């Protein structure tokens, strides 16, 4: 009995070690911030650990982990996404809208993209990240987001349209990517 538990723990440990980099990158795109990404991945994996007996033996533990992460992200960020993500200035006020005249945001594509992502509603951001970074199918994305394929399509399309509307990013996109 104890041996089985130990084996499960070891299996979980190797799962965490193996998936940590990828999960961190996804979480970073979802949250836009290093510490928030670490928190999101850690709390996701804690929940996965609680259910590992079931998850570890499932056909697709990845799908479960994605679902937990997206749920956690949605819960945490749905209400205050912009406040949480947008870089705060000295007065602590949140920048709601990108400053299109900001040279930094135009000079740095990564920064421009992260800022643009930060301005998307959580569901659009999730759809864009899962579809275009995780490269999931619409059906897999719908599973992860707990919604319909139609909702995924519409959120991804709206998200992409908004990203393309950001001046700095639009230039990058029309020039065929960075570098």
């Amino acid at each position, binding site marked *: 009995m104890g041996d089985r538990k130990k084996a499960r723990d070891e299996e979980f440990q190797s799962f965490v070690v193996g998936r940590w980099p990828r999960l961190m990158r996804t979480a970073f795109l979802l949250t836009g911030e290093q510490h928030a990404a670490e928190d999101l991945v850690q709390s996701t994996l804690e929940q996965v*650990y*609680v259910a590992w007996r079931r998850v570890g033996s499932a056909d697709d533990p990845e799908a479960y982990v994605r679902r937990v992460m997206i749920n956690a992200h949605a819960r945490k960020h749905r209400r205050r996404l912009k406040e949480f993500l947008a870089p705060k200035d000295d007065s602590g006020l949140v920048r709601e809208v990108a400053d299109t005249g900001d040279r930094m945001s135009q000079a740095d594509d990564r920064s421009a993209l992260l800022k643009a992502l930060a301005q998307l509603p959580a569901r659009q951001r999730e759809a864009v*990240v899962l579809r275009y970074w995780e490269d999931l199918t619409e059906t897999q994305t719908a599973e992860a987001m707990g919604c*319909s394929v139609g909702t995924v399509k519409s959120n991804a399309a709206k998200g992409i349209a908004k990203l393309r509307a950001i001046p700095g990013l639009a230039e990058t996109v029309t020039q065929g990517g960075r570098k």
Partner: protein
Amino acid sequence: MSADRERNHDMTRTDIAFLLADAADEVEIGIAPVQAVMRGGRRRRARRWAVAAATTLVLAGSTGALAVTGLPGDGHGDRRTNVAHPPSSPEARHVYEPQTTELSRGTHKGKPWYVDIQVWGAPRDEGEANQQLASMDEWGLHPAVDKPAQVVGKISYFVTMKYGSDSPQQILFDSVKKLDRPSGTDLESASLPLDKAGDGPAGDRLVVGSVAKTAREVTCYWKNGTTSVARTGPVIYNHNIPAPAIVPAEGYPAANWFVCAAPEGTTYQTAEVTK
């Protein structure tokens, strides 16, 4: 023209994927904190039990307080004030038990489906909020918050769909200080498949939404060109299955709700207020 659009679409897809990959590289990966994760997991498991135990205690505590308040001849001025203007209890405000309304029901492939709305009253403090979140958890509901403080002063609602023996699926939900009050032809809706396993991609057959109290007719358009019309007024039943209708929901005075289900063989296209 459409070839251009296709090319643009592909380019956008490639470029966005490229930019996302590039941006994702900015994060410092570090070493996976395996032990911390496992400790956190064990704490979470323990906390589940702690929450359940705390809920029991709080309930017992409220019962005691009510019993004391009800004692006659107390002689305490402050207590008499409470009796004269009793604050409505959390139970009366539906903080721990939601007001529920069935918005519609039907059958699909021989199995029943139900669309319900649960409206939870606003907790007045963190104690009530804590207990509310525990109750929501028991109902299998997951609000859009992760701390009890975030639901204090907020009404929470959940529109759920249950199909066959599947666990209920949250369709629309939010926790808000004031319920949105749609007007004119405003319509907020969500569509979903009835049977995730069988309907396949883009198989949204059910549409659920809210409309202004003044809206008298909603038309749901299906991809095969047919429509379903939901109207206000008495709900018409056929073999105990209601026809599409615009209905009020208990605890949600700001809007009415409708549900349309697509006929067999077609799926959802759009919905709008037509009267």
